């Protein structure tokens, strides 16, 4: 597992059970709608993630962990241009945690820099 640095935590409490919120993580159309990007994600460990943003930039990566209705993590990096003009952004890890609370689900999202362990790029 790559080293992980601390990142900023974003939280929101949503008035629906974790199972409902989970559907918005793994359905590409629902994911795209709240994400604000054309999103595709294969919700299995090792599956691909691909986000196309309005500015034409692309973020591509790999699903790291899937715990249904509890936890989804992926790593991704920005990719601009193609061929010799290809520029890669810094790789980060996105962690989405769903926790059942009295009034629904606490959603916690953390994006943190990913220090690539040698040989796993």
């Amino acid at each position, binding site marked *: 597992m790559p080293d992980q640095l601390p990142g*900023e935590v*974003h*939280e*929101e*409490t*949503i*008035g*629906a059970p974790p199972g*409902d*919120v989970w559907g*918005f993580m793994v359905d590409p159309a*629902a994911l795209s*709608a*709240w*994400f*604000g990007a054309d999103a595709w994600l294969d919700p299995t460990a090792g599956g691909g993630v691909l986000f196309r*943003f*309005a*500015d034409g930039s692309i973020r591509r990566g790999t699903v790291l962990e899937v715990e249904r209705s509890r936890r989804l993590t992926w790593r991704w990096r920005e990719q601009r241009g193609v061929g010799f003009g290809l520029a890669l952004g810094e790789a980060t890890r996105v962690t989405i945690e769903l926790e059942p609370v009295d009034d629904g689900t606490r*959603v916690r*999202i953390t*994006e943190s820099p990913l220090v690539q362990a040698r040989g796993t790029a």
Partner: protein
Amino acid sequence: MTQRSPEPGDPDPVFEALADPTRRAVIEALADDGPTTLSDLTRRLPVTRQAVAKHLAVLQDAGLVDTSGPVRGRMYSFTPQPLTDAMTWIVDVGAGWDERLARLKRQVERRA
């Protein structure tokens, strides 16, 4: 017409300016063919000289068009920077996690 001096990066005047098909045609003409006169623009667009002048004034207010030269034979040119600013605004909106979480909340709760 009310003259306003838009804040740098304020997208409102730009979006208002772009909301009209003739004004978009004026921008395209200026962007494609470079600086030109009102008479020349009028020849290339299916509207009256007065209408083109009015649209140019709106575009100028939005910072999308600049003028040079004397009143007679004045040249109008396209200045694209406000478009870039407006594009940045579009991209920045909702690009952060807090905006995404707020949208997720609204969309989940609407369906619940």
